[in-house]
């Protein structure tokens, strides 16, 4: 059975380093509320701008985009009562076969450039996203979009898919002013001088490439619940986390979007800060090359899964901010399930299994590759080497820039690495159609399925679950869990840990609305001084 499932075409490379940094952190000197003049928040952010085009955007500028633009729906954190918060759509419903989704568009919303929001604007944005977005593959199931009246949009699909989740994506789902889209169709560099045309709580006041982004509160913002406190947010683009930390210490900025994860431990007991951790869509896994000996033997793969020191890896790689994975789906992301079994660290069991597989005392060597720009991986791969050595398995570690590591892995499984350490996250919050499909579904040419694994039962379950996701999430989740049980038994990969996102907020500031569905975005409208 062939599948039309979308696949990530391109991954955000710079974000790979994000595993080692805190997603939101703040300095000791929160801007003292000053009743005279505009309220200004000074921020150091690591994220640069690769494009201001909200359709093309598929990189670090996501940090800002969610302040300027809004989608039809916001996906809510895992523990919320409702899975979604209506944004530019007031309500929505799906047909029984899951092939037709009808959205009622909010009335009375204006874009920052004065255009009015209506069904045509939504259709224009989504059509553009499906056609040319960096993440256009998320709209692969789309057949056509109809606008039966001024405020109704009907999205028709070629095969069932969870349009609610897709419409809530961080990439390729922003609703953009039709006037700006028209201008961009004429001139594809239209946005690049620093133009935005969204409906969000902030507008873009000025942009100095490589150094500064200034956001200004949008007075005509429609949603009081997401209204911003600060009139001006002045962001200094600061790629280096140590520099950002120095700026915080010197009081030059009130907030930094990234400080080294290693420093969090020192702030936990500091009364000036509140440290909290949240779910994130990020996880680490070690994919075994199942095409050749000795890892083509399932018993060897199980043995090695027992020989991985999961707790130490979390301690070293995530500074303790992580939880051992239950399969390839990160905690908090659909279809995560705690019922998926895990391997525990048990060297005796590992040695027994190796002996059973005919490798008494190990005696073979494996090549492990990891992405050298990922600081967490750089630290913890050593632990895998140390631990495997204890069961007689030697590991050669090879560090390569991610792109190089990935190219080698895709080229030819027969000569590729034995173990591929991968940092992965779904493009939108459906790890079924992304992680489970992309990482383990068979394909003619390897892409992200870098175990080169081929299991017909698994493929069938994942395909079935994928078509259920839009109509019956519970049934889909149950089917995905059956598929993950196969992953546990067959062990095509060792599932290392799900990353916990950390936020460090000074006592003077309040930050609400942390959301694992938008891990790259800092919502400045949710930041205010403590009353």
């Amino acid at each position, binding site marked *: 059975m062939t599948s039309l499932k979308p696949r990530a075409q391109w991954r955000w490379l710079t974000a790979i380093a994000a595993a080692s940094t805190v997603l939101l952190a703040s300095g000791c000197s929160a801007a003292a509320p000053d009743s005279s003049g505009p309220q200004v928040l000074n921020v150091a952010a690591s994220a640069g701008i690769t494009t201001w085009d909200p359709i093309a955007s598929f990189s670090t500028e996501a940090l800002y985009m969610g302040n300027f633009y809004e989608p039809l729906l916001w996906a809510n954190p895992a523990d919320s009562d409702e899975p979604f918060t209506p944004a530019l759509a007031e309500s929505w419903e799906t047909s029984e076969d899951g092939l037709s989704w009808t959205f009622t568009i909010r009335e009375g919303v204006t874009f920052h450039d004065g255009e009015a929001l209506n069904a045509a604007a939504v259709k224009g944005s989504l059509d553009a996203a499906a056609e040319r977005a960096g993440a256009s593959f998320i709209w692969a199931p789309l057949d056509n979009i109809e606008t039966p009246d001024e405020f109704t949009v009907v999205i028709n699909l070629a095969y069932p898919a969870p349009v609610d989740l897709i419409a809530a994506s961080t990439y390729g789902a922003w609703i953009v002013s039709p006037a700006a889209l028209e201008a961009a169709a004429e001139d594809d560099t239209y946005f690049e001088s620093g133009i935005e045309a969204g409906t969000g709580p902030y507008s873009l006041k000025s942009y100095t490439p490589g150094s500064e982004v200034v956001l200004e509160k949008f007075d005509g913002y429609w949603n009081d619940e997401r209204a911003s406190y600060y009139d001006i947010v002045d962001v200094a683009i600061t790629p280096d986390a140590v520099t950002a930390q120095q700026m915080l*210490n010197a009081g030059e900025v009130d907030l930094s979007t990234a400080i080294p994860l*290693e*420093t969090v431990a*020192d702030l936990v007991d500091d009364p000036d800060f509140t440290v909290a951790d949240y779910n994130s869509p990020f996880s680490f896994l070690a994919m075994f090359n199942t095409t050749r000996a000795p890892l083509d033997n399932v018993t060897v793969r199980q043995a090695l899964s027992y020989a991985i020191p999961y707790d130490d890896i979390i301690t*070293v790689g995530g500074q303790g901010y992580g939880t051992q994975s239950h399969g390839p789906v990160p905690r908090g992301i659909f279809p995560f399930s705690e019922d998926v079994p895990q391997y525990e660290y048990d060297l005796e069991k590992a040695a027994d299994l190796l002996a059973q597989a005919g490798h008494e005392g190990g005696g073979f060597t494996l090549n492990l590759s990891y992405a050298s720009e990922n*600081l967490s991986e750089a630290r913890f*791969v*050593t632990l895998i080497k140390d631990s495997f050595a204890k069961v007689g398995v030697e590991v050669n570690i090879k560090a390569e820039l991610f792109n190089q590591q990935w190219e080698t892995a895709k080229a030819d499984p027969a000569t590729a690495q034995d173990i591929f350490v991968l940092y992965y996250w779904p493009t939108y919050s459906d790890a079924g159609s992304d992680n489970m499909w992309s990482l383990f579904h068979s394909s003619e040419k390897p892409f992200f399925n870098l175990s080169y694994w081929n299991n017909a039962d698994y493929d069938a379950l994942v395909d079935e679950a994928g078509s259920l996701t839009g109509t019956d999430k519970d049934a889909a989740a149950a089917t995905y869990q059956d598929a993950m049980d196969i992953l546990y038994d067959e062990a095509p990969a060792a599932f290392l840990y799900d990353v916990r996102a950390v936020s460090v907020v000074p006592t003077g500031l309040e930050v609400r609305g942390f959301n694992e569905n938008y891990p790259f975005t800092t919502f400045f409208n949710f930041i205010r001084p403590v009353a």
Partner: protein
Amino acid sequence: MTYPLLPVVPSLTPVNERFTGLRHLGRVLSRDWLAAFGLVLVVLVLVLAVFGKWIAPHPEEGAGLANIPNRNLAPGAAHWFGTDELGRDVLSRVIIGAGPALSVALFVVVAAATIGIVLGAIAGYRGGWFDTVIMRITEFFQSFPPLLLAMITVALLGAGPVNVGIALAIAWWPWYARIVRAEAASLRDRSFVEAARAMGVPTWRILYRHILRNSTTPILVQATVDIGTVVLWVGSLAFIGLGAQPPSPDWGLMVQEGRGVILNRWWISTFPGLAIFVTVLGFNLIGDALRDILDPRQTKR
């Protein structure tokens, strides 16, 4: 009054300068405390490089074995230089790191000098088209920033200490070639060389006895200073991820590993950084002193 019959080699070739040089050394060291200090540093690093395995308090941690319960300990009685993110004793890491640092540096200098001396001597002695070609090649190499050239080479060959050695040797040989070539070209037409040629001394012998021996001084000075510089560059390449890979005890890599926490746990980066500093300083001081001893043209400080 006898007239010298065979004034074949006038005193233009101070062949035995090395011996006067050695005698010199004691005097220079006693006078020049900086040179003495440099010698102490270099000897210290050499001792660590050779006997590190026995000196380091935790040699297995030095080589890279993690010890998670000991993570991030500040310098103290148990761990003089503290411990790093993986709980490894930083002092042991620094000590064990001396060996690889010096061996790569030695390899680079020896390889670069060998290539440079051979090509430079032939180019200078023969002249003509060979000289032109070699000199244009050296100019080509020298017009690149050497570290950039090394980075490109490593990127092509793949990261790792061996490739770093090859890359740096490739980036470095033109300097030696030019030094030797200059000497060879200036000596080529001197009467003692012509005389040797006339007497049928084979070319390789002329090159060795007359050309090379006269280039010893600048080569030796250059090589000594270069060892320090190469240590620095190997560290730089490792720092940007192109050199040794974790868990190797490479000084540059260790600086990089601790960089993110430099404000909170300064010791992880600082001590390997100091090790690089000490090594470079030591070799530079010795290089300066050698120049003073060996080069009669240079005025004394």
